[in-house]
């Protein structure tokens, strides 16, 4: 019997008739233009939002206008090219890291297959090395001698409208999660390249609304949602009523109280949207159980800082608000809730932007006496650090059986994991609040965790398909532990995660719900004087 040769057949794969469109690249990547169609881009920022922001002190968002990515003409300012190249020159001068990242990549490819966007789309321009090359090619042409002379022969290319459009496409197919950086032998932080691309695009009025409207809202009312102080306070009090119904405990938080020991800041989604509100109920119960002397601020009413996804100046301004409020209220230190990128801003940029916060004290837990030297400069600690320390010192009573309905796994949120090294505290908390929990495979957790796929202001519904495919690597690992161990809950410590992983799970693994760790703490917490109902679903139980 003749043996069919696979290699011979492989040829017929390319040659034979096919129902599918063969996609073997026939062009150099530089010659493949970005094509915008409904569903593959996030909506541009509204002109009125940009105009408002441009009128604000300390930030610059020029060239506000109505435009559409699908139009040929993006109505760029006449001297757009000059603006971009001057902007790049300024940044190369200001940020030594950018200059190094532009020069030192040897294109080894270690990052290529580490990006969740590449893994979900198969689009080579989503390989971090090639995404960076979109900028690097222009840098070579305009800022290196070899590139000026030899151009494309040395990987340089002219800055054109097509290149700009490509930047917009791929700078917004990166969630700045920094998984690729973990694998880069040179430590190139590709997220910072995306940040630069976005900054440059803002100089010519090209940005997305899902980033800019929350930024405008935060600048104006203090939080993404644009909640007024009254609405913010009302929402928290509404959660206090829920807590009383469920547990018999009346929690009476204070707002804008001067002289409190601690200022508590968390993402506004925690006081507003499911499932974050259950996490928030967890915070409120915990603080009540230990009698913490703390206050909320209705002005620093947002942990999230979409400035990180926008521009250095915007990030600085929004971060500064937290410290200005801490100063105004005269607190000793700041306790931060379960937020993702707030912690990246805190740990990697705050000190040189707004710090050191000398007017605050090094955080010291008033309950255990533990001094958090790791936050000696920023004066702000994460709720997981604080809670883990309480548990370690036996200061709270936990009943695991109250979480009997929960079989969790833990998703390391990108920024707390990779930007602040918060890896073990959440796991220690889980060990103490549930009977059993299960880790996802090693190459999908801790420093190597996969992004939710919707960070950096990409959690908008017009790009739902893009979010689902970029979230596939995360969902795929969750599905594995769901099928193997019966995991039904995905624990996390980030508000964007709580929102976006919920949608991601609905699509890929609908049997799994998403919960903040503090919700699981709140479920298990035994408080003196409580008259707790039979809460079969913990704080989510409808009574």
């Amino acid at each position, binding site marked *: 019997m003749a043996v069919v040769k696979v290699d011979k057949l492989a040829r017929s794969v390319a040659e*034979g008739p096919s129902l599918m469109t063969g996609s073997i690249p026939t062009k150099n990547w530089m010659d493949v233009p970005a094509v915008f169609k409904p569903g593959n881009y996030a909506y541009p920022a509204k002109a009125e939002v940009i105009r408002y922001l441009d009128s604000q002190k300390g930030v610059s968002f020029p060239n506000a206008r109505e435009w559409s990515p699908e139009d040929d003409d993006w109505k760029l300012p006449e001297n757009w090219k000059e603006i971009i190249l001057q902007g790049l020159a300024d940044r190369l001068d200001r940020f030594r890291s950018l200059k190094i990242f532009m020069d030192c990549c040897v294109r080894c490819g270690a990052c290529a*297959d580490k990006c969740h966007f590449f893994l*979900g789309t198969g689009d080579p321009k989503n390989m971090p090395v090639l995404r960076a090359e979109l900028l690097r090619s222009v840098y070579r042409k305009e800022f290196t001698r070899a590139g000026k002379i030899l151009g494309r022969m040395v990987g340089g290319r002219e800055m054109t409208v097509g290149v700009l459009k490509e930047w917009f496409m791929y700078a917004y197919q990166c969630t700045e999660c920094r998984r690729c950086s973990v694998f880069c032998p040179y430590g190139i932080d590709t997220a910072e390249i995306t940040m630069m691309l976005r900054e440059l695009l803002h100089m010519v009025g090209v940005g997305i609304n899902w980033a800019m409207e929350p930024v405008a809202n935060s600048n104006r009312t203090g939080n993404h949602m644009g909640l007024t102080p009254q609405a913010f306070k009302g929402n928290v009090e509404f959660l206090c009523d829920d807590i009383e119904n469920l547990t018999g405990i009346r929690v009476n938080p204070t707002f804008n109280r001067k002289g409190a020991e601690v200022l508590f800041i968390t993402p506004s989604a925690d006081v507003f949207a499911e499932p974050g509100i259950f996490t928030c109920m967890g915070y409120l119960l915990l603080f009540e159980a230990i009698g913490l002397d703390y206050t909320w601020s209705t002005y620093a009413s947002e942990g999230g800082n979409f400035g990180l996804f926008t521009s250095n100046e915007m990030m600085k301004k929004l971060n500064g608000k937290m410290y200005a409020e801490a100063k105004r209220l005269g607190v000793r230190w700041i306790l931060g809730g379960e937020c993702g990128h707030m912690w990246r801003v805190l740990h990697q940029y705050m000190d040189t932007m707004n710090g050191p916060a000398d007017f605050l004290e090094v955080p010291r837990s008033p309950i255990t006496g533990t001094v958090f030297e790791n936050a000696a400069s920023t004066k702000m600690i994460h709720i997981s650090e604080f809670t883990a320390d309480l548990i370690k010192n036996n200061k709270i009573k936990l009943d695991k059986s109250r979480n009997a309905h929960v079989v969790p796994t833990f998703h390391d949120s990108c920024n707390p994991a990779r930007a602040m090294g918060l890896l073990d505290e959440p796991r220690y908390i889980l060990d103490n609040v549930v009977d059993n929990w299960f880790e996802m495979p090693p190459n999908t957790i801790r420093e190597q965790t996969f992004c939710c796929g919707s960070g950096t202001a990409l959690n908008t519904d017009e790009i739902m398909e893009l979010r689902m495919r970029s979230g596939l690597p995360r969902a*795929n690992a969750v599905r594995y532990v769901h099928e193997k161990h019966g995991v039904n809950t995905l624990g996390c410590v980030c508000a964007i995660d709580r929102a976006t992983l919920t949608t991601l799970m609905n*699509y890929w693994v609908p049997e799994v719900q998403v919960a903040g760790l503090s919700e699981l703490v709140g479920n298990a917490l035994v408080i003196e004087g409580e008259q707790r109902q039979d809460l079969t679903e913990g704080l989510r139980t409808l009574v």
Partner: protein
Amino acid sequence: MEVTEALTSKKQEILSVWIERTLDSYIAPGFFKSAKDPFANPVGSNITAGLTALFDLLVAKADLQACAKPLDQVVRIRAVQEFTPAQAVAPFLELKWVVKQVLSGDKATRPLLGKLDALDCDIDRMALTAFNIYSECREQLYRNRIRELKSGRALLTDAACPSALLRREQPGADATTEP
């Protein structure tokens, strides 16, 4: 030789070509084809596992219900990638061509080419089931959109600011400075 026997003996060749052709529908399929770790390469490994399971089920003449899970494993991914609906489910119909190609390459199996009607019919049924799953996936996406809108997160955009609205109502006020 019967068709089932031929399919069993040619399983590796058929699967290899089928998977290769399916992954070639991506722009840069090299990594999807080569990486074996299911967590490092979810697209490649799920499609490989799904198509392999489907082939076994076809040979075993399993009922369509049994095909639902491996079909879902492949279709759920392709339903959110940049394919048209037809392109998303095309791989299942492609199997007919692949089987004919492999069987015609061997003298012993060539006579079976005229006896593939039943198999073709099974493959068609599988492809139609795949289209059902594709539609369910798309509907799920729209439900997700609605759920996000209802959850209140949509207030992130288009949020009405009472103070801005008030200002707009006042004559002569500059409304453009408020979003």
